[in-house]
């Protein structure tokens, strides 16, 4: 078996990298894949909390690198899904504790008996980012429809594009709020895609359920009713190669927005004909 190594990155912090990692990882594992999540945010780890595994960690990636334990010993099995395991970051060290080569090496080893290795990248473009990207051949760039997040995502896309090892990179648009888009207070999905000129792999609506799922340590993909959970499950299916339509998030668009949209479209068509 040779697994795919996908890095989940964003540049800006707080856009939902870790949430995305936890959810895509869980969704892939639920679909029957063997998945390892690697938290590379050494010193500021959080992935363990989102998965509710913080009380089970004995060894971390730093212990593996410094040969205090074997890689296998450091993998923490998920509570619900035996297909999913976590390689936690050390909380009491910093980014310099692991090198690019070491991370690459770990990814290579994990590839042998896993379908997917998801690398949760720290914010920023410094060593932590360089490390996380080192072993990956695919990337998911997480962003939100906000100026700062988009700008940082653009920077990241530029850096990823410059790396030969990265064969593909896709955009995941997080925290989309259809009601704000309808009133033109938020950039639309199309706007962001156009600005960043990058293929989409998913659109995740803002969902307050994310907060409680984080607090419970149970990723929202496990909630069958949640729209965000559905969106993450769709992302997982797309990663697995399925063609899945993007969720229609604009149903609750207000009536004025609808009328305006209709007219604007028509006007565009007319103009084009003149």
């Amino acid at each position: 078996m040779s697994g795919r190594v996908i890095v989940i990155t964003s540049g800006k912090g707080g856009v939902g990298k870790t949430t995305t990692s936890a959810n895509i990882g869980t969704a892939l594992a639920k679909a029957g894949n063997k998945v390892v999540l690697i938290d590379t945010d050494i010193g500021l780890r959080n992935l363990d909390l989102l998965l509710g595994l913080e009380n089970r960690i004995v060894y971390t990636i730093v212990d593996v690198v410094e040969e205090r334990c074997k890689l296998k010993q450091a993998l923490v099995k998920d509570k619900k899904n035996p297909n999913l395991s976590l390689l936690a970051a050390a909380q009491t060290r910093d980014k310099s504790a692991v090198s690019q080569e070491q991370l690459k090496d770990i990814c290579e080893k994990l590839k042998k008996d896993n379908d997917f290795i998801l690398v949760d990248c720290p914010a920023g473009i410094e060593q932590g980012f360089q490390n996380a990207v080192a072993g990956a051949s695919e990337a998911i760039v997480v962003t939100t429809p906000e100026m700062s997040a988009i700008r940082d995502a653009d920077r990241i896309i530029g850096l990823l594009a410059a790396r030969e090892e990265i064969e593909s990179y896709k955009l995941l648009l997080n925290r989309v709020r259809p009601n704000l888009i309808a009133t033109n207070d938020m950039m639309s999905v199309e706007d962001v895609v156009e600005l960043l000129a990058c293929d989409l792999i998913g659109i995740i609506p803002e969902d307050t359920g994310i907060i409680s799922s984080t607090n419970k340590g149970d990723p929202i993909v496990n909630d069958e009713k949640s729209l965000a959970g559905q969106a993450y499950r769709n992302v997982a299916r797309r990663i697995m190669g399925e063609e899945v339509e993007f969720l229609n998030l604009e149903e609750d668009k207000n009536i004025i927005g609808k009328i305006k949209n209709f007219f604007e479209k028509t006007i565009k068509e007319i103009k084009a004909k003149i």
Partner: protein
Amino acid sequence: MSFFTDFYNKVFSFFKPQENVESNVKDVARSRLKLVLMQDRTNLTPKILEQMRGELIDLLSKYVELDKELLELNFEQEGDQVALMLSIPVIRAKDEKEIEEAIKKDALLKGIKLADDEDEPDETSEESEVTSENGEEITQTAEEGESVSGEENQESAADNNEEQAAVENEQTESSDNESSPEAV
């Protein structure tokens, strides 16, 4: 057709006051971001970009009547290549006479300027260096300006309207071949 546009305007003049204030949030964000991303991607300063935009307008308006406000200058990334995209709404193509006049006037102006101010040409040449790292050049200096082809318009006015075709036809005669709106 006009019935439709009228209707649209009538209906939406009703919403306009509100629209002007609020609906622009997204557009403001979009255009701000466009500019910022362009700078980030190319390392060009806003000043240089503004200058480039100005010169492009000057240059192109010799041949066509443009909607200057709506000219869009954008760098787009495709793979590891950055392309300069120009989008210029063309109001009307100029006829040959007008073009000749404009060129003469321009040459005259530039001549005076050159005598007056020596910094100016330096800056422009520097700029074309920056934007032409990958061989293809954007030519904007006064002398070369004459040789700009319709090709540029083709790129720029791409999605606008059929006038563009006319412009292209007219301009091919006077064109040399070297300019293209792409730079890396």
